[in-house]
Each structure stands twice: as structure tokens, then as C-alpha cells.
């Protein structure tokens, strides 16, 4: 067994999220991973070299956001010419919020955009230099329903009547294999349903149902075929009807139920709806921000994809309409809101932002967890779940050692 002489860090005076509970215990980190201290103690006679006093706080895995279109003025679908700069700065900004891993999300776009940006949105380790870890892109559309396009540009939407070939033509299958974590599609759109198992087999990506008018029967079939996630539950899908609850109805399935993203900014989904959905299927809830480029920017006018949007009073609308164009809540805020809306426990709220997204992506042995061997992406939180300290790969993140900038904005006319 190789012996590492790297320093061992011990977090003490804290409650750790472990086995679905908060336990008073120590957390040990070495070489960017969470380690089994007993092993180090007995086999190598090691005691901690660095001790971090958490002052009675809660120690949680870092947050994971699987739906984020941009932030700090940057947008992954629109800033194609400066995509590297966008990724670098957003990753660092997110890290400073306590989000230690994320899926950069692209809205429905034309094939040339995917060719340009996907290579930059592929998996990348989190660190002080890189910022938050990138878990692969979330390509939301263009294989979605025009009836539920939300803020997506209709001209980009398409069907998959040629099956896999259409996906190849749009994204490039190699891009899907290498750079994409999951894709949002509408299963009722032509050619999509049968493509689900083919896509999974050819590329290994995860499939999510969303921006869809699917009936319950269609939603069930998609789920059976391998669509294990639902994109922003309640938004851009058929409303709940008692005899045909659509995609939402999947949360009431008696056998297996999918994961589901849910936006807890209090705007996209009414707090009561969050509560109903959560208690229908608590272990599937994934808190997402669906943040757009205006996140963490002051009020004003910005671009999302190719659309102009209006940010005021914490709301983001397509300019001149009442259509919500995305959110600007941070994931840390969503976690706190979630508890307010549902009365759920801190453990449940934290798992919705860590464990469940990691499980959905199939990476729960190394992300979203504090078990031995996991990446040491750690948050120290107070009892109101305010983020106090952030660690990525075992290194503490501060404004002094992670520097980034907002995108320089061109003035957009108010009318």
C-alpha cells in the first residue's frame, strides 16, 4: 500500500452529513479526498496535521447544480466566441457561492453552436484554478415540443424522425459521449421515444423529460425506456390533470419514480407545489437554479440565448412579456427556500442539493457525499444553512484565492 506523506486535515467541532443524519464527528481529508482516519491511524500511525475548527457548524458536501445556463453576465449558449472565458469565470463565481460542481446548460440552439461550445463544457476537475467542477453539459433542447418551448427560440426546435442520425447531426455523437452529462427531450415529439434507448447505448448519457406536452402514458413509456430525470418539474410541461397528470404524474407512480429538477426560487413554482411534489417523492428531488446570465448581476436588461430579457425585483422575463425567462436565485438560496416551503429537515434539504443530483448523474461515490473516497468538496454551514466556508478538493476557497470577473456588458436599449 502506498503511503502518502501529504498533510491530513481534520474538521472538528462540527456535525457531519452522513448516512442521512447529522452526526457529531470529525471529517478527515488528504490529497483532495475524504479518507478513513482509522486506516491512517492504525496502519501509518498518522494524526492530523491541520485542524479546522468548524465552530459547531454543519459540514455538508458541496452543492451540485445540474441546470445553470449562465451567470455573472455570461451565457453558455450565446457567448460562443468567448466560451472559455465564460466557463472559467462562471465556474469560479459558482464556487464562491458554495456550488462545487455543476452542469453548464445550453438552451435550444443550432448545430454550429453545439460544435463550438460543447468541447468547452465537458467534464473538468474542480480546483482553486478551475473553479467549480464541471460534470459535463446539460443540453436542454432542441428536441423539445414547440408547445412547451418556454423561452427557447422556436426556429431551433426539431424532431428526430431520423433517430440517432438527427442527434449526430445536431450535437455530434462524439460530443455527447465526451462532453455531455444529460439531455432534455420531449418524448412525444416524433422519433424521440424510440431514440431514448439508442442514445443511451450509443453515448452513455442520461435522458431527462422536459419542455414537453407528454401525456402520463407517454411519460411512463419514456421513463421505462430510460429517461430517469425530469427537467424543472412543473415548468414547460402539461399541467397536472387528475385523469392525466402528464410528466408530473410520474411522481405518483407506484413502482419506480424518476429524479426531478425543481426550481425553488418561489417564482417558478409555488411553494405549495414544491411541498406536494416533494412529499410525493422525496428521494428524487434535485434542487436546481436554472440560473441565467443575470444571476448575481444588478437589475437591468441582458441577453439569454438570442433573446432579450428584463431583470427586475428578482424576476426575469422575456422583454415585453410575462414569460419567465429563467431564474437568478443561487442554489444556496434555493436550499434555504426549500426548507421554508416544505418544513423538511436540514438533512433532506442538503441531500436535495448534493446526494440526489449526484445519484441522478451516476457519480454518487465521489460527489455529493462525504463517504470515504469521495472528492473533498465540502461546505461548512450555520444552522440556517448559510454558507460559511467552502472547500474544493480539500482546499479552502476564499475571495482572495479565487478571482474572476463579470462579463463586460454592452448597453441594451430599455425599449
Amino acid at each position, binding site marked *: 500500500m502506498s503511503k502518502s506523506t501529504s498533510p491530513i486535515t481534520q474538521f472538528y467541532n462540527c456535525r457531519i452529513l452522513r448516512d442521512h443524519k447529522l452526526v457529531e464527528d*470529525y471529517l478527515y481529508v488528504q490529497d483532495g479526498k475524504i479518507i*478513513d*482516519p*482509522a*486506516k491512517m*491511524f*492504525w496502519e501509518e*500511525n*498518522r*494524526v492530523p496535521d491541520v485542524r479546522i475548527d468548524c465552530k459547531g457548524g454543519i459540514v455538508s458536501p458541496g452543492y451540485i447544480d445540474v441546470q445553470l445556463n449562465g451567470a455573472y453576465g455570461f451565457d453558455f449558449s450565446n457567448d460562443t466566441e468567448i466560451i472559455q472565458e465564460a466557463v472559467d469565470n462562471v465556474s469560479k463565481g459558482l464556487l464562491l457561492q458554495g456550488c462545487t460542481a455543476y452542469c453548464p446548460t445550453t438552451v435550444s440552439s443550432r448545430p454550429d453552436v453545439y460544435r463550438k461550445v460543447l468541447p468547452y463544457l465537458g467534464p473538468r476537475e474542480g480546483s482553486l484554478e478551475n473553479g467549480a467542477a464541471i460534470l459535463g453539459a446539460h443540453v436542454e433542447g432542441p428536441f423539445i415540443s414547440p408547445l412547451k418551448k418556454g423561452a427557447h427560440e422556436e426556429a431551433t426546435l426539431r424532431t428526430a424522425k431520423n433517430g440517432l442520425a438527427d442527434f449526430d447531426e445536431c450535437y455530434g455523437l462524439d460530443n455527447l459521449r465526451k462532453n455531455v452529462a444529460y439531455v432534455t427531450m420531449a418524448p412525444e415529439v416524433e422519433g424521440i421515444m424510440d431514440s431514448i434507448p439508442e442514445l443511451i447505448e450509443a453515448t452513455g448519457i442520461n435522458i431527462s423529460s422536459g419542455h414537453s406536452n407528454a401525456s402520463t402514458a407517454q411519460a411512463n413509456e419514456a421513463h421505462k425506456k430510460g429517461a430517469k430525470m425530469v427537467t424543472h418539474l412543473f415548468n414547460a410541461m402539461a399541467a397536472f390533470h387528475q385523469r392525466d397528470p402528464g410528466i408530473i404524474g410520474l411522481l405518483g407512480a407506484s413502482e419506480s419514480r424518476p429524479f426531478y429538477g425543481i426550481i425553488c426560487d418561489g417564482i417558478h413554482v409555488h411553494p405549495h407545489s414544491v411541498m406536494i411534489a416533494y412529499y410525493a417523492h422525496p428521494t428524487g428531488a434535485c434542487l436546481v437554479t436554472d440560473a441565467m446570465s443575470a444571476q448575481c448581476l444588478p437589475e437591468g436588461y441582458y441577453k439569454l440565448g438570442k433573446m432579450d430579457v428584463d431583470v427586475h425585483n428578482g424576476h426575469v422575463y422575456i422583454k415585453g412579456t410575462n414569460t419567465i425567462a429563467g431564474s437568478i436565485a443561487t442554489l444556496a438560496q434555493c436550499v434555504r427556500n426549500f426548507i421554508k416551503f416544505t418544513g423538511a429537515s436540514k438533512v433532506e434539504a442538503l441531500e436535495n442539493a448534493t446526494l440526489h443530483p449526484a445519484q441522478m448523474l451516476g457519480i454518487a461515490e465521489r460527489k455529493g457525499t462525504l463517504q470515504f473516497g469521495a472528492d473533498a468538496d465540502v461546505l461548512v454551514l450555520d444552522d440556517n444553512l448559510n454558507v460559511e466556508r467552502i472547500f474544493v478538493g480539500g482546499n479552502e476557497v476564499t475571495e482572495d484565492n479565487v478571482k474572476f470577473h463579470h462579463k463586460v456588458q454592452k448597453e441594451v436599449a430599455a425599449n
Partner: protein
Amino acid sequence: RINEFKPTRKRPFVMGLPTGSTPVEVYWHLVDFYKQGILSFKNVITFSMDEYVGLPRSHPESYCSFMYRHLYDHIDLKPENIYMLDGNAEDLAAECQRYEECIKEVGGIELFLGGIGPDGHIAFNEPGSSLESVTRVKTLAYETVLANARFFGGDVNKVPKLALTVGVGTVRAAREVLLIITGAHKAVALAKCIEEGVNHMWTVSVVQLHPSAMVVCDEDATLELHVKTVRYFKSIEQVQEQLIGRQNIGLKGSISKLSSANANHQPDAPPPAAEKQIADDNDESSDESSEEEDSKTASSTAAPPAGSRSNEHGVRSNGALTSAATAGNPF
């Protein structure tokens, strides 16, 4: 005892340590003392009394895991100062031999902390163990296996049947033995070991032969003792506090500076009637300590307790009790 000993690297304080539910609380307090800065373990050496055979060290029920979880992970005890029996050694007999040699090398055990099994065993020295035994492999008694099943999901089949254990002789060889015995389920064993003869069927009974042994127990553990026995041990402690003053009694029970004890008796305490026959936990019974005066004077480090007796009961300069003291005999 550790602080009184003032251990150094060249003269460390060597302890024998047990596992079980009673020691968990003791260790909790030790950890607390360490966290408060009152106690350091950096010059303490520990020997654990026993370990299961065949259980991987990483198993949550191994005694290594127990000690790490409850004590070692929380204090400044150095890993190289920790001695554990290796239940997975190729040659178990050689391992036991090695352990005894390690104890000798560090100069023997200063204080052996232990408990008692429901069948009166110390460590895994089950009934029938030789009272002169050394560290060796033992087959566990059925009662012990049953008692331990609760840590293995209630399944007796999962409990290891063999263990390495220090011998009764190993414990006796320690310079001081301290047993903590609490709970009604230990009452029969305590009675057998204290009131009856030294017997290999109740191996803890060897404390009767140890020059410096103390048993700390709670009221429940005394349930099977004769009333006379319980009263006697309680009275020793009360006499000591009342007449001599706790500050003049060393940790090992020896009395120093008797003459100053008469003069410096604590007057500012509530009258004895106020605190009597207390039925609380952690009542201490001193065993044999007052009969064995150590030849070395033990300096007293205990601070005067808040509830010292008043000197309404007079004490003459020669230490004898006045009739006032014996008259209103509170016992």
C-alpha cells in the same frame, strides 16, 4: 492519577484499558478533560485488555475500532504509544508472548482500568481461568457471546468465539487496579467477587489479593451485597471526609499530615444531616485502601469538596473522636 504522576517521555504513565459500555462514559470524561486542557496523553502508553480473534481491524466491532471511536480519535495519545492485541496474527501464541514482553519493556502497567462481566470475569478471563494466567487465547463463554450479540445485530452466530486477552495474572501485576462496576446486572458478580472467596469461577475476586485496588460502583451494582457491606464502605468514606478532610487523603487512600488535618478541618460546610444516604449514581466505595498504608507518602491533590463535613463532631489533637462524634452516629 495521570496528572499526579507527571509523566514524561522517559517515565511515561502506562495504562491498561477496557472496552464495554461502562468505559464509554469514562472515556467521554477523559476526552472532555483533554478538550478543556486539564489532561494530556502525550506521555501516556496504553495496553488494551483484549481483542477478538479473526475480526478485521476495520470491522466496526473490533476493539481497535471501539478504542479509536471512543478515545484515540479525540485525544493527543501518540499512535506509537498504543498497544493492541492483533487478533489476526499468524501465530496467536507468539502474539500473546510479544504483548507480555512489551508490557515488561515499558516497565509494567501503572494503572489497569477495568470492568466486570456479568459472570465476574475481568477482560476475557472467563470462569475457570487460572488466577495466575498470562495473555493468551481464550474461548468465550456462552454468556459472554450472548452479552455481546447486541453489537452484532443480535445474531449470536456473528459474534467471534475466540479472543486474545490479558491474563488474570497480567492484571494483578499492575501496580494499581481500578474497576468501574455499574448497573443491576453486575450486582451478583460484584457480590461474588467482594463478599465471597477468591475463586477462579469469579476471576475479578482477585482484587481481594491486590495491594492497591479500587472498585467504583453505583447503587444498583450493590443490590446483591449485604446491607452491612454497603454501609461499611460508605461509612469509611464519610469518616474520612468528616474527620480527616478529603484534601488530606491521597488518591490511593493514604493519609498524610494527620496533625494538620485536625487543625485545618473545614468548618464551612452544611451539617451532616443534610446529606445522608444519598441514592445517586457514582457513589464511591473504597476497597481496602485505608488498610494498606503506602510507604511513600501520597500528596493529596484533591480539592476540598463543597460538601465537607462540619466540625460539630469534634476531633481531638490525637485524632480520636470525641463522644460527640460517636454519639449522633449518622450511620
